[in-house]
């Protein structure tokens, strides 16, 4: 649990920054198709999962306190 609290938020931040970077790169050159295909899809799903887990942990903490 301590590991989740320590590592997961940072992982979530890093993945979200990566997603935003890819969105910006794609707006300059859509031909590269950065938003298409499985790498972007998997990154999006992992980021979503990490965000949900972080939110759940934060919510649990706030209820306990």
């Amino acid at each position, binding site marked *: 649990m301590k590991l989740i609290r320590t590592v997961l938020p*940072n*992982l979530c*931040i*890093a*993945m979200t*920054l*990566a997603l935003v*970077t*890819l969105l910006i790169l794609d*707006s*300059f*050159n*859509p*031909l*590269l*198709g*950065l938003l*298409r*295909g499985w*790498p*972007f899809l998997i*990154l999006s799903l992992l980021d979503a999962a990490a965000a949900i887990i972080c939110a759940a942990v934060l919510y649990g903490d706030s209820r306990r306190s």
Partner: protein
Amino acid sequence: MKEKKTIPLLNVVSLDLMLAALIVALVLFLRMGVPLLESRAAPRNTPAPTPAPIPTAQAAEPTGDPRSEWQIRFAEHFSAETEIGERSYRSENVSIEIETLQFGEGIDASVYHVADIYLGSPEFFQTYTANGRMVYFETQPVEEMAADSHAILCISGDFLTYQTSGFLMRNGEFYRQDTPLNDLCVLYADGVMETYPAGTYDAQQIIERSPRQIWSFGPALLDAEGHVLGKYNVSTAVSYPNPRSAVGYYEPGHYCFVVVDGRQEGYSHGVTVPELARIFEELGCKAAYNLDGGGSAVMVFNHERVSRQSNGGRALGDILLITEPGWEEEA
């Protein structure tokens, strides 16, 4: 009591940024690096732009006249002897007239070049990819491509070699049959050119009509009646005034290439996509399609640049060209 060590905030932020960069690099490698390595390991030669009669081309009327239907219909544009001028070309099969015009006024004025093209037969409209092969991110200077492909006239294409997805065909050979997010332009073997908004076409219907070239870039510039559209399928980043390259269609055998110079203050500002559409509407085209512009937009005629690229331009992934066998011996 042992003090709890906390990592300085700056270190945490730096670690997060480094991790984000690593993730972006990984995605880029998987999306682009892997196809690049695969295509370089096994490069695929693209069909040479060698004009040869296309099986579905329309046969000459059974009147004893050996000329093709297009040669008869556009006879006033062709010439029995090959005549090559500074901005014109006339032969039995190909007629090209290039005009340089101005769009707009004052500081927003843009210079554009229109090549009016008549063909005696569809096989004289071809394409060529960098170094004659399909390798991801391969490019070649346009003069070399024009020389290798024996192009009388050429313009930049849809940067085929940078496309990792799309519905793409060159000189009758398919490269990809993915569903693209872009509008399509299809040149069929009978010389008809049609554009399709993204998501509105039936791939099987297109295939059954014997396409020769399929470009995936866009956007399409005109509606079915040849009028400008109200909205274009284009990203915001490229919708500002820019150099442009585009192809237009009047009827089978009659086409035009348009290249707009831009990003050159005092010479040519560049045009937006709606302005480019207006150029084609004023030309009277039935269909028109935007190709790769910006630093790529270029027109070369008789091995010399007609347009003026900003910053000297860039090497290209592919070109659209007009050619006929043996024309360089006549030059």
